[in-house]
């Protein structure tokens, strides 16, 4: 039990890490990763939604009729997304301003619906929480990693949380603005995917 629980948790961190392995949920991945703090904020919001929607879908898996299951999942997911949105407005309004439209869009993030359909609807609540937590943290770390590459090359800084710059390139560094623009996201993602495949290849 404990072993399989750990397995469900850790698979989200490497073997099935959403943007790189499952290549799911790319819309927020590409859009918000211009700064590390945005990536982390988006990742944590998604993790919250994943954990709770997984839990509820799993608890209700024997009650929800299979013909309307997707509608039910969307209602559950949308509820938690709205809670996150209101919570962010109430407590981290500045982050909410930066992420803006991408918070409501978590509803249609394939990662969340994908885990509800592929995992939580077939497994126990505890397993589903482990799965949601694992996938969510994996998602957060990938967003942070991608954002770190883009921010470092594109702006020459790494901003961890609430404007706290933890690393800054020297004055001689010329920002490579292409990286913080939309096409840079694809290039960075592609290079990181290639890198992960290289490491993963035995």
């Amino acid at each position, binding site marked *: 039990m404990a072993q399989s629980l750990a397995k469900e948790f850790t698979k989200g961190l490497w073997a099935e890490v959403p943007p790189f392995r499952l290549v799911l949920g790319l819309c927020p991945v590409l859009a918000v990763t211009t700064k590390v703090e945005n990536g982390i904020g988006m990742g944590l919001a998604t993790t919250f939604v994943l954990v709770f929607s997984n839990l509820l879908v799993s608890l*209700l898996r024997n*009650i*929800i*009729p299979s*013909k*309307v299951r997707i*509608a*039910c999942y969307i*209602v*559950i997911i*949308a*509820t938690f997304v*709205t*809670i996150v949105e*209101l*919570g962010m*407005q*109430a*407590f981290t*309004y*500045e982050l909410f*301003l930066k992420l*803006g*439209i991408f918070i409501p869009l978590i509803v249609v993030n394939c990662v969340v619906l994908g885990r509800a359909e592929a995992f939580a609807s077939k497994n126990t609540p505890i397993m589903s929480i482990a799965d949601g937590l694992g996938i969510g943290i994996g998602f957060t770390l990938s967003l942070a990693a991608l954002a770190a590459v883009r921010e470092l090359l594109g702006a020459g800084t790494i901003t961890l949380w609430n404007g706290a710059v933890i690393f800054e390139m020297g004055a001689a560094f010329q920002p490579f603005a292409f990286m913080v623009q939309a096409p840079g996201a694809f290039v960075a993602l592609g290079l990181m995917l290639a890198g992960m495949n290289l490491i993963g290849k035995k």
Partner: protein
Amino acid sequence: MREMLNMIVVLTALTAISGGLLSAVQSGTKLRIEEQVLNIVQAPVIREIFPETTNDPIAERFPIETETLSLKIFPAKLADGSNAIALETKGKGGYGGDVGLMVGINLDNDEIITARVTTHAETPGFGARAKEDPEFVSQYNGKSMNDHMGLKRDGGSIDAMSGATVTSVAVTMAAKEAQKVYQQIKPEILKQIQ
């Protein structure tokens, strides 16, 4: 039949519970969100509209309620001794929902001092320029409260932002709303300020 009924019951129950939960969360966070909007969005905008005042418009704000609306009034005493207020209205029909516009109005001559966009969810690089670049809303500077607030194509005198007509219209809607509200509540404001 039974299956059909089951589907209806489950989905209805789920949406009802979700609705109830959300309205609880909404009313629980409402005050805090208003406070955050005041500190992070409205206060900087008001300082931009009234760079020099002899009072604190934010601390002295007061609510005005009529049968149809309730809004906050930010009173300002300008350096030249005239009285002004700022009020925020929402323009419907932006690309990403309502566009908030804070309008500073001189009470003595009914002229707009300037206006600034507050809350919005417009597209970055297009509609969002209405907030980032004050050039568009600055067209309202010095406009009288009796003037036409619309875009040129609607018979007014405001140039739309290129590439962001929808947002421009939403801003003018907010300005028209401010005009309407102002005429309605001006006597009440004067009473409050005395």
